[in-house]
């Protein structure tokens, strides 16, 4: 296993720049997830790491070695493709052994490796089948098995779960996570699903339009999104992003709503310098708008207020309360037992220390 560093990477097709000055690095044994909407360049980035696409500038280092000019086979990596890309005329065992065969590994060793991998992935009973005789989940396993046979420096996964149905997707997600924890492999994983990103990653890179928006741990990305795009993209339901006016002294923000405006103090000891008296965008996660709890009673950062509830959406474990805030529908998240009813008012507590602030022009986070 090895580390991966991407330094000032650029990629263009003709005059179209698809990747713009990407800088990323993941330590040995880390799990890097590339996430972003369709067409943002995730697959292209992965393919440049794999060596399937040449780069237009910058450098890719695997285990400290510059591999930018090397052929895919010489980079010591393995890849799981979105379509699985199993060789249709070969059996599962032949599929798994093909990479070793091409590298002239002797037959007894190949057979041992196939056996070991098949046991890890519980596909021993499938070894003599052809890919066309397998279910989606089984194909997925075989594709992973093919990558696992040679102990490469880095594993690359391109949307490996996107062709599975919802239930299987969750199961395989857990399995990939378990596999990573057991084998301590370095993984780069592409997905457009932010939940997959949050659950699997040790580091997340959010991409949009070929530009790296933010690179950090899942916690950093979730709690301190770098800009409005990341704030909206990561998390479900999305972060509430509403307009607010900053007090002249910069120590509180005021949000318009149906009745009395809502005044929320900025985190203690901090002021929104440079924005005093101006309008900004505040971001509040749904779980930061919730039912008041007794243990928060004396906490000055928790603001309790009456809200007029427009819609109530129970999900079983939680109940979402939707109310107008700053001219938009804001969503709060209460535990299922909290009695709220559409059309009535309810007391909700806002945890202001979880609030993030954005410049409305640049859309970047303030501070």
């Amino acid at each position: 296993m090895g580390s991966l560093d991407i330094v000032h990477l650029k990629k263009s097709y003709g005059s179209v720049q698809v990747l713009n000055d990407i800088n990323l690095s993941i330590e040995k044994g880390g799990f890097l997830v590339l996430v972003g909407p369709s067409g943002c360049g995730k697959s292209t980035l992965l393919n440049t790491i794999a060596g399937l696409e040449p780069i237009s500038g910058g450098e890719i280092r695997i285990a400290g070695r510059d591999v930018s000019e090397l052929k895919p086979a010489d980079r010591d990596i393995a890849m799981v493709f979105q379509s699985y890309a199993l060789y249709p005329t070969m059996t599962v065992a032949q599929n798994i052994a093909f990479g070793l065969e091409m590298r002239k590994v002797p037959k007894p060793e190949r057979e041992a490796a196939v056996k070991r991998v098949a046991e890890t992935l519980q596909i021993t009973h499938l070894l003599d089948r052809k890919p066309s005789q397998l279910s989606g989940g089984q194909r997925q396993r075989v594709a992973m098995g093919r990558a696992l046979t040679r102990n490469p420096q880095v594993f690359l996964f391109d949307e490996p779960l996107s062709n599975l149905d919802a239930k299987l997707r969750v199961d395989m997600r857990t399995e990939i996570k378990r596999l990573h924890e057991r084998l301590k492999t370095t993984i780069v994983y592409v997905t457009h699903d932010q939940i997959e990103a949050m659950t699997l990653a040790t580091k997340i890179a959010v991409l949009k339009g070929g530009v790296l928006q933010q690179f950090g741990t899942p916690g950093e990305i979730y709690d301190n999104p770098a800009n409005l795009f990341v704030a909206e993209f990561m998390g479900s339901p999305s972060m509430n992003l509403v307009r607010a006016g900053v007090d002249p002294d910069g120590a509180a923000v005021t949000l318009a709503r149906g009745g009395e405006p809502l005044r929320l103090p900025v985190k203690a000891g901090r002021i929104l310098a440079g924005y005093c008296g101006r309008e900004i965008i505040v971001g509040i996660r749904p779980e930061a708008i919730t039912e008041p709890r007794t243990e928060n009673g004396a906490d000055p950062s928790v603001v309790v207020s009456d809200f007029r509830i427009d819609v109530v959406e129970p999900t079983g474990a939680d109940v979402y309360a939707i109310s107008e805030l700053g001219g938009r529908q804001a969503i709060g998240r209460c535990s299922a037992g909290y009695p709220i009813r559409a059309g009535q008012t309810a007391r909700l507590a806002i945890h202001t220390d979880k609030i993030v602030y954005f410049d409305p022009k640049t859309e970047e986070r303030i501070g």
Partner: protein
Amino acid sequence: MTDLSLIPREEAVAGSRAPVFARAALYAILILFSVYYLLPLFVMVVNSLKPLSEIQQGNMLALPRDWTLAPWLSAWDQAQIGIQATGLAPYFWNSIKMVVPAVLIATVLGAVNGYVLTKWRFPGHRIVFGLMLFSCFIPFQIVLIPMARVLGLIGLAGTTPGLVLVHVVYGLGFTTLFFRNYYEAFPNELIRAAEMDGAGFWQIFTRILLPSSGPIIVVTVIWQFTNVWNDFLFGASFASPQSQPITVALNNLVNSSTGVREYNVHFAGAILAALPTLLVYVVAGRYFVRGLMAGAVKG
């Protein structure tokens, strides 16, 4: 074949509700056309098994009264071809010696071309493919004289290898077109996966693509075999008397001016000349349909 077999069954269900006379009319038309197409073959077979005297009596459609294989034996190794009484046999082997390498070489080259044009694209690949496609539309007559000159220059004039070369060059446009279209639909991710597995250019071709190419290989072989075997113009233009293919020899057999016209021998000779292509269709015909449909159904 499984999916094709569904179609007649569905039709049968619909047909049972349709008026009976429509069904009858359909069968009548089908039988009429079958007769129309089968009649020439019938005439040829029947008359090739009669003594000449029976044909001269005038009824071409009658079954033989005295069944005989003599016309076949004569056509095979006794009949007068031009000035020599060798029968068609030596020319049959000439055709085999020409058609086998011409089919193999053109098919292999077409497959490699298709592979490169779809999976290893280079700048200008479109133009190269366009030119190869264009070669499919060049009429034979235009190239006759330049081709004769080239064959002369490289010392292959009047030889079987010369004919093989002509047919390979002429077939290449088509074989490339077949394989290119087939490989165009072949998933690129498989090629990339093989690349990551460490397979090289030829290993990807022989281990990944070729094993999946059965249907299109059959199509190409049938196409090329039929065209080369049935060719008359190139054989008549470029072959020496010793290397003439069977089509040219058949013409010489029929046009030999000495003695009476042995129609029964001519019929037997014509069937002999057509037999290999017929055989190829019977053996591989159903793969032909499958191969032609493969590109269309996939996707």
